[in-house]
């Protein structure tokens, strides 16, 4: 259904997310860090990005600023799927619209079914 860039630093979790998204018919390009994810963007723009903010070296917000500078990627919707808890002071909502963040999902309280449901909804809305 959709081409998805998954930025997930943990291999075990990435396997589960990939499997669930594959099962729902999506193509998943999984990367563990911002640098390698940017090289994927050089090849093709995904239809949706699922992003963990806690990444090694460059964090998720830095990746987003860089991604938004790519002409092909300036409107790609982003789902923050992160270990950063909703109460974290650094998780200000002010910069979300600017960076095209459509959804925030707190990873410890989001099931695979919920993630797939949000992804399906966003990709369908984008296609319409």
């Amino acid at each position, binding site marked *: 259904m959709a081409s998805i860039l998954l930025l997930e630093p943990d291999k*075990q*979790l990435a396997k*589960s997310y990939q499997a*669930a998204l594959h099962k729902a018919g999506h193509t998943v390009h999984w990367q563990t860090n911002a640098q390698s994810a940017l090289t994927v963007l050089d090849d093709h723009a995904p239809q949706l990005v699922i992003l963990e903010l806690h990444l090694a070296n460059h964090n998720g917000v830095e990746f987003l600023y860089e991604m938004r500078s790519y002409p092909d990627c300036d409107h790609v919707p982003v789902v923050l799927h992160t*270990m950063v808890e909703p*109460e974290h002071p650094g998780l200000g909502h002010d910069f979300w619209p600017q960076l095209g963040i459509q959804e925030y999902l707190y*990873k*410890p309280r989001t099931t695979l*079914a919920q993630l797939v449901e949000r992804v399906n909804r966003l990709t369908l809305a984008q296609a319409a």
Partner: protein
Amino acid sequence: MSRSVRRADVVSNDRLLAALAEELKLPLLQIARQAELANQADIEMSASQALWFVDSYLLSQQLLQQSSLELEPVAVSSVLQDAAQTLDSLAKQYNCGLELSISGRFMPAMAHRQALETALVGLGSSLITASQDKKPRLILAAHRTQGGVVAGVFSSTDGLSQAVFQRGLSLYGKARQPMQELTSHTGAGIFVAAELLSSMESILRVAKHHKLTGLAATLQQSRQLALI
């Protein structure tokens, strides 16, 4: 040992516990998601519950560190519904009938929404797992009083009284079964809830609802909205 040295020890222990709790989140999350993928509902539920406890502990520590918690007008009925939804699969696992009881209409109450929901889920999960009944009942309820909105969780489980609860609070962190009359477990969800509610300047108390005993707290009604 001087008081300042003991205080330094407490701070160091808190940091160590917080670091351990953070570290535990990842493997628990891995187990929960792998179990979900493999349709192993029981394992998923157990891992999710453990993850929930760890996460709630971290939330309560974070909130307690804040000098003052920002309270906002919260629709208590909607928080009860969300908490019931979170507890639903655990209740099914324990063959527990889960009900919502929201009597009458009332104004929003002043609370920290996430802390209130976490407290209610903590109370619910502790009371569900404590029950020895074959078909236990759990009611998440709210009603209005002169003092504000009372929200709580009530159960058909025996053994809960104000004396048991008070003794539990004094033994919490020292004894393995601080509320032995109620549960064979640690009752951690109850104590996490008590801490979260105290961070909202509300006190958890033993209360009754439709012949069931439970734990509830009174939240102040939102004065700002009452003026409209």
